[in-house]
């Protein structure tokens, strides 16, 4: 771009954009929090719903230990670590630890569909995932699909192994003793233990046994193989295999099972050795070599996938050179909601990569015609090994738990990130169907925190009620901004968030001074505030609202209920680091169409430009661009999209500065405040969530049986909702199927509440989808 158009003295924004202000441009978020811990070591930092308090000193020390573990694992500057878990204290410690080790974090909501989670982790080449006990199982199921993912950490498990805390050997033995003692042959073999669509009958069981026997023999080259069976149960498979084996060892933790297996094998004409032990003890209790090690319908009863992996690693040494491990009857997470251990086929296929000694692993789907019901959906697998000389001991990285974290010292690492390093990536909806990851540096985040904390005098006596998802960028200020000020974060639990009355209790009974949310989240609570007798509403002093239109009456309702609350409207874009403008809401004229957008914050500049990127005349509507320290680095792994939305700033203060094309329409008001006038495109806000209608439409078109689709966001009382229209290919397609398919692709807030089937989409004269006609169909 050549010489930029002059900013004439008559154009007020040249004045209102004089926002330059010194801030500490060379410090990082961990620096700010370490200083807070120095200044206020004993003040609360994190307060949970069960009134547990973590002080600033404790937060700092705990995060240091985890940061050291991450660094020991080779995670540091340039790496990305995902947070996949509950909004709880360990997660906050985890976020700080990630930043301390120099890496950036990306929040991933565990409620998102697995497919989306895998896609996002893959897109960012995530090196490690921080998760928790509750979400470990989902992460174990999908981690194998993410090639870059080396480490999974679960700090809230104190024991060394993920399974050892909940593993109760006595209960397992009792249970399988009980099962194997059942008079009913099927039940004794472990069938019909839980209600399925149709109970298994004798035919099913016979088919199953014959299939497993044939499969095991097909997998080995030995004519009379030596066989080790783990989880032999009542001896169903023993009877089929033992007569044809050169040696047969039946292992089970249940003495009753082992006895029955031996009896069954003897009746069938085979010789069976029995060993009573758990799968992880087999390598120590049994001598190899074996041609076949068989786990038939056993894996689903193991404690978890990490356990399975360590068992497999320990069994490799028991195999003959051309021996195989056969895993029969595995349950695919994509096909079943079975509560026990499910094994994704990817896990099997990737085994050679992370289990040294495994030379090949194959997945064998079953013929649907051979099996009825549930068993048809299960699958079998064969694992082969390299010749024994090339079989090193299992070198796989274990799951890292609180045990490993506690082994690290609590002193800070000597080095951390720099201000230019990436602090976080937060995903927003993308119009083409793929979410966009917005990449933000420490410097931009520090500028934001400096500005908010100074403008609103946030300090060590402040406590914020943290009600937002980590995946919303408001959380960046809520956590790091308030902690940097020496204040504290009161985590609202999921249960507290579900019931507005409980949130009112917290606001009235605890020492909460700051509320920060999208307007919709507070508007959910206000009806409950208003119908209750006030009881302690003087503490709340600052209400920050952003992310969506603020209902014009809302500020007055808030101030009527909470007399000391100052209401602030904030705005900006995720691409410009949470917020970059603010408006202290004073007297509200009920006739206003909206609460004004306000003025740019420190070191941010707002331009209203015409199509030629020239400043619009004062008061005229134009496109809103944001420039300054707040501008993000861009979109992760999307140089094209980044170049299209982040343009060179013609009025830059330094060379290389860019301005972000928000897609918002805006104009300057006589007061010097900006007024927001809507969007250029199909981006909408639904209860504070930023959604591209194109992403929802693209998901609809991925649903099997959908030929055409369109999505609208009608405005109604209390805001907008999503409504979708679809045209089935040929067969009528029930709405419930479409909803089900959407739920496997999109987060729940993006799934339209209303879905309508049409024969054809209505078109306008110009051949475009007629949205007005669609809206009238609702």
């Amino acid at each position, binding site marked *: 771009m050549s010489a930029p158009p002059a900013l004439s003295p008559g154009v007020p924004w040249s004045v209102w954009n004089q926002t330059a202000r010194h801030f500490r441009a060379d410090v990082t978020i961990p620096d700010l929090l370490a200083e807070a811990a120095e200044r206020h070591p004993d003040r609360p930092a994190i307060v949970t719903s069960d009134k547990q308090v973590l002080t600033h000193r404790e937060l700092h020390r705990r995060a240091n230990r985890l940061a050291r573990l991450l660094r020991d694992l080779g995670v540091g500057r340039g790496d990305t670590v995902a947070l996949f878990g509950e909004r709880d204290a360990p997660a906050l410690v985890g976020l700080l630890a990630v930043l301390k080790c120099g890496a950036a974090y990306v929040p991933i909501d565990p409620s998102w569909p697995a497919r989306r989670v895998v896609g996002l982790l893959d897109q960012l080449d995530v090196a490690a995932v921080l998760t928790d006990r509750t979400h470990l199982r989902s992460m174990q199921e999908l981690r194998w699909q993410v090639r870059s993912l080396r480490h999974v950490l679960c700090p809230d498990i104190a024991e060394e192994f993920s399974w050892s805390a909940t593993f109760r050997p006595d209960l397992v033995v009792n249970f399988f003793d009980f099962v194997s003692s059942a008079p009913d042959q099927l039940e004794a073999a472990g069938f019909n233990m839980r209600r399925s669509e149709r109970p298994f009958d004798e035919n099913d069981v016979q088919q199953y046994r014959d299939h497993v026997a044939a499969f095991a023999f097909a997998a080995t080259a030995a004519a009379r193989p030596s066989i080790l069976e783990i989880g032999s149960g009542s001896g169903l498979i023993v009877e089929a295999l033992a007569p044809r084996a050169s040696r047969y060892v039946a292992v089970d933790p249940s003495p009753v099972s082992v006895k029955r297996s031996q009896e069954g094998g003897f009746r069938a004409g085979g010789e069976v050795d029995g060993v009573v032990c758990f799968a992880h003890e087999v390598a120590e209790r049994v001598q190899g070599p074996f041609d076949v090690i068989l786990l038939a319908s056993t894996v689903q009863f193991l404690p978890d996938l990490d356990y399975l992996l360590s068992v497999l690693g320990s069994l490799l040494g028991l195999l003959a050179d051309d021996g195989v491990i056969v895993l029969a009857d595995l349950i695919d997470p994509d096909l079943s909601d079975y509560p026990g251990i499910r094994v994704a086929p990817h896990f099997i296929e990737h085994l050679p990569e992370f289990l040294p000694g495994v030379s090949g692993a194959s997945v064998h789907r079953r013929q649907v015609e051979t099996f009825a019901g549930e068993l048809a959906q299960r699958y079998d697998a064969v694992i082969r090994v390299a010749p024994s000389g090339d079989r090193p001991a299992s070198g796989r990285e274990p799951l890292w738990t609180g045990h490993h974290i506690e082994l690290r010292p609590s002193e800070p690492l000597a080095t951390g990130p720099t201000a230019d390093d990436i602090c976080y990536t937060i995903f927003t909806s993308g119009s083409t169907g793929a979410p966009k990851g917005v990449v933000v540096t420490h410097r931009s985040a520090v500028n934001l925190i400096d500005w908010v904390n100074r403008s609103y005098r946030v300090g060590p006596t402040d406590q914020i009620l943290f009600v937002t998802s980590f995946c919303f960028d408001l959380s960046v200020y809520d956590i790091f901004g308030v902690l940097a000020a020496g204040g504290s974060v009161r985590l609202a639990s999921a249960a507290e968030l579900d019931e507005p009355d409980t949130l009112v209790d917290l606001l009235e009974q605890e020492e909460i001074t700051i509320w920060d949310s999208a307007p919709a989240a507070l508007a959910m609570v206000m009806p409950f505030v208003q*119908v209750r007798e006030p009881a302690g509403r003087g503490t709340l002093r600052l209400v920050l609202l952003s992310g969506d239109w603020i209902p014009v009456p809302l500020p007055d309702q808030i101030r009527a209920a909470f007399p000391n609350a100052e209401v602030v409207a904030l705005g900006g874009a995720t691409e410009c680091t949470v917020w970059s403008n603010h408006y202290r809401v004073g007297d509200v004229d009920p006739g206003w169409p909206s609460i004004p957008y306000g003025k740019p914050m420190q070191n941010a500049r707002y331009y209203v430009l015409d199509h030629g990127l020239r400043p619009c005349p004062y008061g005229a509507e134009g496109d809103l661009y944001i420039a300054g320290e707040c501008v993000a680095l861009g979109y992760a792994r999307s140089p094209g999209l980044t170049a299209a939305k982040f343009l060179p700033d013609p009025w830059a203060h330094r060379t290389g500065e860019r301005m972000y094309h928000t897609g918002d329409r805006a104009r300057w008001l006589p007061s010097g405040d900006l007024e927001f006038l809507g969007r250029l495109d199909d981006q909408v806000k639904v209860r504070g969530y930023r959604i591209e209608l194109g992403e929802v439409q693209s998901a609809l078109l991925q649903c099997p049986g959908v030929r055409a689709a369109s999505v609208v966001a009608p405005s109604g009382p209390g805001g907008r909702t999503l409504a979708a229209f679809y045209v089935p290919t040929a067969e009528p397609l029930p709405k419930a199927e479409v909803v089900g398919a959407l739920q496997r692709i999109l987060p729940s807030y993006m799934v339209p509440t209303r879905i309508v089937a049409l024969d054809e989409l209505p078109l306008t004269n110009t051949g475009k989808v007629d949205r007005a006609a669609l809206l009238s169909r609702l």
Partner: protein
Amino acid sequence: MVNDIGSAEVANPDRDGNDGSARGLLRAHVRAGWAAALQHERFDNDDDFFAIGGHSLLIAEIMAGLGALAGTRLSLKLFFDHPTVNELTDALAAHEAFGSLAR
């Protein structure tokens, strides 16, 4: 505006199932709460709230209002589990605090 419960419109509930019985009166209160939140009355007593343009924000208005009516706290979950006028009426009728209104 939180809610119009108690307004003139509700004081004379006479359509859509108010047969003069206590249950009918409660149903009329529920309908009035829905109508105030949705700002229309074009729904049947068996319509799903979400299918007629409802969403969680409006549920908060309705449940805060109905709770205040009976002097009790109502869980939002109660609404999510009973998202039609008839179902919500029945669920509330089973609620202790609504006993005097429903019987």
